[in-house]
């Protein structure tokens, strides 16, 4: 689970907001607020990717371990943005394989099977060898989701991941995302403008100003 204890985000030593919350496994915490309030900055603080002029105080704990001083790549905190951000020099399968932990699979065949299982879960079986540029927006969003899941994170951060999808696609991708997170028992933080997102997430909602 994820715990935020007295987390304060600063911009140039000026506090933006203060926040305490617990997110249990399989739950989604939704953070809402106007643009510029620092929602994305909060996610970057949790992921360890905060950049000047921002800074953070307070404790960020994952499974009761303080992660404030752990290197970004060792935190096991996955992050997703409004763009799918698939690596264009890799195929769909390579994108997912790139995300998988080192030596998680004994041989190539097992890894290949694992990739396919993930793709099947979002109804994209058989596209592992496709170039990411040939995918539709909805397909890219789903690949991006399973790429994040493939890295087996302890926490998933969602930075307005549905805002660029058109309305018809949005609810579908949204329910896919939340059901996958729930199935894997992963805690998640969702940042959004959209009240429907918050409703669909079903967890606590925090509004920051």
């Amino acid at each position, binding site marked *: 689970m994820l715990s935020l204890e007295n987390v304060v985000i600063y911009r140039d030593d000026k506090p933006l907001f203060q926040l305490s919350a617990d997110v249990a496994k399989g739950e989604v915490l939704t953070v809402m607020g106007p643009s510029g309030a620092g929602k994305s900055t909060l996610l970057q603080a949790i992921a360890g990717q905060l950049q000047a002029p921002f800074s953070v105080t307070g404790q960020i704990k994952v499974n009761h371990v303080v992660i404030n001083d752990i290197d970004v790549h060792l935190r096991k905190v996955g992050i997703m943005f409004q763009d799918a951000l698939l690596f264009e020099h890799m195929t769909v399968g390579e994108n997912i394989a790139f995300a998988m932990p080192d030596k998680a699979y004994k041989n190539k065949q097992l890894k290949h099977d694992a990739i396919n299982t993930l793709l099947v879960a979002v109804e994209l079986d058989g596209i592992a060898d496709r170039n990411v540029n040939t995918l539709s927006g909805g*397909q890219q969003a789903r690949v991006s989701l399973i790429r994040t899941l493939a890295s087996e994170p302890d926490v998933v951060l969602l930075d307005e991941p549905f805002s660029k999808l058109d309305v018809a696609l949005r609810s579908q991708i949204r329910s896919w995302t939340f059901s996958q997170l729930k199935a894997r028992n992963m805690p998640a933080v969702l940042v959004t403008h959209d009240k429907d997102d918050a409703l669909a997430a079903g967890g606590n909602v925090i509004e920051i100003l």
Partner: protein
Amino acid sequence: MFTHITLVARWCLLLLLCIPVLAGLVGVIFPALGYFPAIGANAFSTQVFATLFGLPDIWQMMWLSLFTGVGSTLLAVIAAFCILATFYQSSLLGKIQGVLSPFLVFPHAAAAISLLFVVSPSGIFAAITTRLNAYFSHAFTSPFVNEISEMALPAANDGTLLYDGLGLSILIALSLKELPFILLMTLSVMSQPLVKKKLTGYVKVGTALGYSPTASFFKLVLPTTFSQIKLPLLAVLVFATSNVEIPLILGPNNPSTLAVAIMHWFNHIDLSMRLLASSAAVVQVAVSAVAVLLFLGTERLVTYIGKRSLSGGNRYFADGALRASGFVIMAFYIILICAVVYTVVVYSFAKQWHFPLLLPEGLTLLHWNTAISALTTPFINTLLLGVLVSTTSLILVLFTLESEQLQPARAVASNAFSVSLFLPLLVPGVAFLYGLVWFQQLIFQNAVWFHTYVAHMVYVVPYVFLSMAVAYRKFDNRYAMVAQSLGKTPWQVFYHVKLPSLFSAIMVAWALGLAISFSQYLPTLLASGGTIPTVTTEAVASVSGSSTRLTAVYVIIQAVMPLIGFMIAWYMPVIATRKRSRQMLVSGTHSNRSANPVQ
């Protein structure tokens, strides 16, 4: 660990740019003040400067350097802005970039030699004029008067600009070479995502308020971008005041520009002339500084006048005249390029080519054979040096850029960094290179390859950095964030995500570094003490040699070498992409899903 390595690279890059320049300056200041133990001069005095200013031609030399430098830069800047104002919103812009880009990598030496070919009294323009004169006299007078065509010859001779005492030939040649650089650099600033977005908006507002395209360029676009192109413009200016190749090949000899005189004095057999050369090198720094001040003064004046005209609300900005000159300048470039290509190529295959004939008498491969056998070693030297210099500067630059993102420096430090990046371009080469050589001879006398390598690095690194930085900073950092959050170390993110994504930009920067290294004349000549001949040094040397036709071959080789580098840079990414898609096709899963995506 990787973060530390990139930090070290950042420092290496900084030291590599600063140490040679500063050491070089110290190395000329001491002899200029009379301290040069090698020839028994141990006492500091201002005697050398007194001797220098006692020379009858010294003021004329300084004037020539200042006049040609400032004049050419102002002319090139105005002409470049004319072209931009005329074409920046037109569909011809891409074509213009295409026409002018090769100039960027065409070495100065080759440019000067090409101009020498076409504007010389027996060059193609003179030949065409003579033929036209003859034709018209023929047509308008009588069919049997043949003498007139003979008489037209001296007139063409008188019209030549070469070696003129005023330095106009240098001024024009420098402008021709500077204009493409200024134009492309301005365009690259204008195409940065943030700037581009802002400018597009400005132009829309300008148009909506009824401002003509040229007026919106000068009143909205230029004031917004100028601060970003100022530093590169100053580098161009300093280069123009202190360049050696162009005045050496096209300029007057008695007196020459200060930079050419410095080179001759330094290379004089009489070692005591080095004192004089050193003091002149110090004066050269002052001349370039005066040029910079004049330029900045002009900028102030133009800004002041411009500010007042801004609120005047005039919707036009000499539209007709500017558009006309924009087209004329482009036409001039195209004619010049055609003339140069024709002359140089035909010369390289010509047996004999008599003035004023437009075709040679007979073709031969002799010059190519001669050149190829004579250039084998210089060619290998050029290539080896170029690949070594360009590849290492690229690695250093990439690590430095990565370090900027891993550990952003404070504002002051990053300003200091960008100034030091321009340091080798803002201090005249002819001034610090000799001092650098003096130090290098003191330390490792025999390591000529190392010395030449360092001298090249000083010039290549800034350009590779400037070229690479644009793409690197444009790169969407969220890709790096995603990769990191997938558990990848900074090195893995750099190697597996950033390098492949930026592959084409990296190859272009590499090719640019190669081209800059190929074109170096003075740094190669000095640092190697003449022991490492390259294609460029041989080409310059061949100008004073006997065979024009051999020189033509050298020019072609000089022009083609960097172009091959760029062709590799353009095709490598294409090949890489094709290879990937072929692998996908082979694996047989390329179904028709892409045509009918599941959503």
